[in-house]
């Protein structure tokens, strides 16, 4: 008995959700999730990502717009009738049923005979590495094990779309990396369509094929982890995905795809992203700041923190304050040191605003 995938794409066409009279939780979003891909909805709390997920599940009904799973319009369909299953933040294991009964629960409503349901459930438990735990109660499992039961319970239904609502938030830091890799491995092996909600950007970068960053009930940017990290659309995305130092600059000239910018006399060449000459903003990741390269913007080390694998510096200057990291932990800079701050050849981007 193996678990198959019936992965299907998900489509949102102009979907809005209004709670009460005028609380817009989701405002006119268009979204396309390809079959067999893991897409993360990422954003600060209250941005509408969980509501979006619950609309895919059918736990919330869209106020307007259209939702398609596969070729089928499911906008008006309640959760029971959608071929979608979900792993809840709290796992929502039924405390009065054993692990096996929990995993079999959905199968019994899908028209499987008992023995068939049982062997499928056992296969599911096997897949998540919980062989032999079938007769335990959920309360007798650790948090990580409960989490895997919840995943197995959702997986065995071979849903068109599998949903995860912040699945790692109740696990301790060490376990998180492990579980998130397990989830990703299962998703890739079975070729599942997965929509995953999180507010942890590192988690999103690690597991996703594609990330949807949401802000204020709307989509701020959509793209692969690399695209979002290397070419954020605006300040919000730049700052939300990884840390970014936002610095004011002047675009001196544009030549084809490339532009030359200047900050306090320091010049740097980078992709223009279609911007005209004039004042602009540049986003630079902390690791892409080069300290004491000889050329650069004058700055002063305000704070120096040793965190083991690297040094973290806070630099101040006319431009304001930036955060930089440096791999050289053996000869750290003392606070008060005057330095020159340059940019790495790749990495810094202009923000089209």
């Amino acid at each position: 008995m193996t678990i198959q995938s019936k992965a299907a794409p998900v489509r949102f066409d102009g979907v809005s959700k209004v709670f009460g009279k005028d609380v817009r939780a989701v405002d006119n979003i268009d979204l396309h999730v390809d079959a067999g891909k893991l897409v993360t909805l990422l954003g600060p709390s209250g941005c509408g990502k969980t509501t979006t997920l619950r609309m895919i599940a059918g736990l919330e009904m869209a106020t307007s717009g259209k939702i398609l799973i596969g070729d089928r319009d499911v906008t008006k369909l309640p959760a029971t009738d959608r071929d979608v299953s979900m792993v809840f933040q709290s796992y929502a294991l039924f405390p009065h049923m054993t692990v096996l009964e929990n995993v079999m629960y959905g199968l019994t409503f899908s028209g499987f005979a008992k023995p068939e349901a049982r062997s499928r459930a056992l296969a599911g438990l096997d897949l998540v590495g919980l062989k032999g735990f079938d007769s335990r109660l959920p309360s007798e499992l650790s948090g990580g094990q409960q989490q895997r039961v919840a995943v197995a319970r959702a997986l065995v239904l071979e849903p068109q779309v599998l949903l995860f609502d912040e699945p790692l938030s109740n696990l301790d830091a060490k376990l998180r990396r492990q579980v998130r890799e397990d989830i990703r491995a299962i998703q890739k092996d079975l070729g599942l369509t997965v929509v995953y909600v999180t507010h942890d950007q590192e988690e999103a970068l690690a597991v996703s094929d594609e990330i949807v960053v949401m802000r204020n009930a709307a989509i701020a940017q959509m793209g692969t982890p690399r695209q979002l990290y290397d070419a954020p659309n605006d300040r919000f995305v730049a700052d939300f995905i990884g840390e970014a130092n936002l610095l004011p600059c002047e675009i001196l000239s544009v030549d084809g795809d490339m532009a030359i910018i200047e900050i306090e006399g320091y010049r740097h060449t980078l992709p223009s992203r279609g911007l005209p000459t004039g004042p602009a903003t540049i986003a630079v990741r902390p690791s892409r700041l080069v300290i004491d390269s000889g050329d650069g913007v004058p700055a002063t080390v305000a704070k120096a923190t040793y965190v083991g694998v690297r040094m973290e510096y806070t630099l101040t200057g006319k431009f304001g304050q930036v955060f930089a990291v440096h791999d050289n932990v053996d000869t750290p800079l003392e606070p008060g040191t005057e330095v020159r701050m340059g940019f790495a050849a790749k990495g810094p981007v202009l923000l089209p605003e």
Partner: protein
Amino acid sequence: MRVSTTDKTSHPVLIFWILAGWVGYCLLPWYMVEDGLWSFEWLFDGYPFDEDYAPAAFLIGQGEKIWLSPLLIPLALPLLVLGRVKSDPVYSRILILSGTLGFGWLIAQGFSIGIRGFNYDWLGSLFGDIRLRQFGMGYGAMICATAFLFLLTQGIAARGAINGDVFVVSAIGGVITIVTAFVFFPIAKMLFAAFVTEDGAYSISVFFAKFFDDRLWGLGCLWGARCGAAWNSLFLAIMVGFITTALGLAFALVVTRSGFRYKRALRALTVLPIITPPFVIGLALILLFGLSGTVTQFVAELFDLTPTRWLYGMPGVLIAQTLAFTPIAFLVLIGVVEGVSPSMEEAAQTLRANRWQTFKTVSLPLMRPGLANAFLLGFIESMADFGNPLVLGGNFDVLSTEIFFAIVGAQYDQGRAAVLAIVLLFFTLSAFYAQRMWLGKKSYTTVTGKGDSGVHPLMPKGLAIPVMVVALGWALFTAAVYAMIIYGSVVELWGVNNSLTFKHYVTAFSVRFEEEGIRWTGAAWDSFWTTITIAAIAAPLTAAVGLVTAYLLTRQSFAGKNAFEFGTMLSFAIPGTVIGVSYILAFNVPPIEITGTGVILVISFIFRNMPVGVRAGIASMSQLDRSLDESSLTLGANSWQTFRRVILPLLRPAILAALVYSFVRAMTAISAVIFLVSAKYDMATSYIIGRVENNDYGLAIAYSTTLIFVMLAVVGAMQLIVGRTQIGRRMSQSRTNV
């Protein structure tokens, strides 16, 4: 793997209700069978052709009751949709049409044609003076009506209400219908009765004449005469509200914020009002302070005074009600006092407030809404109390007893009873409304479910001592009263012959073993078994209605939910006497003709005790995380399957509590019951009251004692069982409030 149900063309639930409709119409006796619900004599006595037992189809076949024939149309209509899919607009339209037509026609004909023909003159003049008559609805009509109702709800669901959820829509429709039929309809009927003159016409002046009666609003007591019943009730209820709240707070503080060692014994007090029939306290007070009471005699001899009848009247009722309802205030206030988050008090202490300042500036203000709540509860309970004023009232008239005497006394004045009931209802509903609207939004109790590991500080010394004295003093008094009840049951004739005897128990509960088996020769057995049977039938129904309602209120959102909640909790605020009066006014004529049967008792218990089930259900359902339901739904279970397989099993303790509680309340109830009992169905409480009125105190007290012990056993057994049905981690947090 899941096949969407919206594409299916077979609808098992629909087929079931269509069949039910046809069975009700063609096979079951349409009208009420005289011999009662459980008698099946009709099967062998002329069925299906005898007019009394015939199903509607046979009646029409014989040319009788032809006004039932239009029902064939709505019965046949749903057959048209059997092959269609749910999303087809025709499907929902036809079902809604059929349900509305059928249900509407049933109600219309039921109310228009009564035992003596047309109920309204204009109908008679419209159709001429044909001899049409019919009795109350029976099996057939009831099942038909139910079928139409659920056809209608399926139609509404198919139109997309509540995401097309048939179970939820049907549950809402069902609850609304029964609450309307058995709470709002009788109350409305009673309101109309207040305007009826002696010759049956409607008149406002009749209402005003009765409303402004001096016996109701007189203020004579200010200058030595008697006051009206309304003022008496109001004054008494306010006093009882204040005193019970104060005492309840004292008890709650002793239990939660003192070093007192026997807290568990104090907590046991809370079980007393549940297991004690309300008037028993009054009886015990008579034994202590009555004309030949122990204390009266003792004091009289000591100081050489003439014993007086001071107990009969306001003082006696006040003491009895305070004894009876203090535990209720205690129960409410324990929750409130414990609910104040200890970390708030600890914060105050770290901000340099001493214990007294902390109590005065933080704890007490946070408890204030709870105190108001306890006051209003005491107010409502006192207003509605019937047993104690009946036993101890003397010349002190209160509304609840006046209603009773207006109906059963020589005056037999339905209009007056209705007017009194309206006044009483006005008081209790105002209190209820105040409690819900004003306090509902003002709860400061701060239990969030997050770990709050603080400890409540002890009371300041200056407060602790008086509080302890009052609480323990009152606890001792309560204990003395209960001891009196037990002692009184084994005394030959109180105050006259104080020798000990089991005579009263023998009279009440003697049995003889004969060859044919046991013969229940005692005088009390009849009413005892009736009580047990009726309570046992009512309990599961009450729990079911209560839990379904609680499920709808906590787990579903739909238009008009607030009104729905208000309506279902309303019967809590309707005093039993009002329910009693309105039931006999509403249900002694067709279409629902059930006075004098056991059914009316069962129904009155269901709707009197439903709020208890609802609250127990809400309390424990809000402890279950919503994601449990949601995950069940996303796993493909529908809402009925979720309710049955996830929620119900997890609610087992709450279900048991609701069952036992409604059982016990049904056994102790008196106020509504006394109007509804009949010779065939006499209940224990009304039997005891009857004994009291005949001055047969020994038997009454012996019977009461037995009841108390029976219910103590039931409640105790439940506590044991509930203690064991704790499943998993989550459940260990859920408390059952008994």
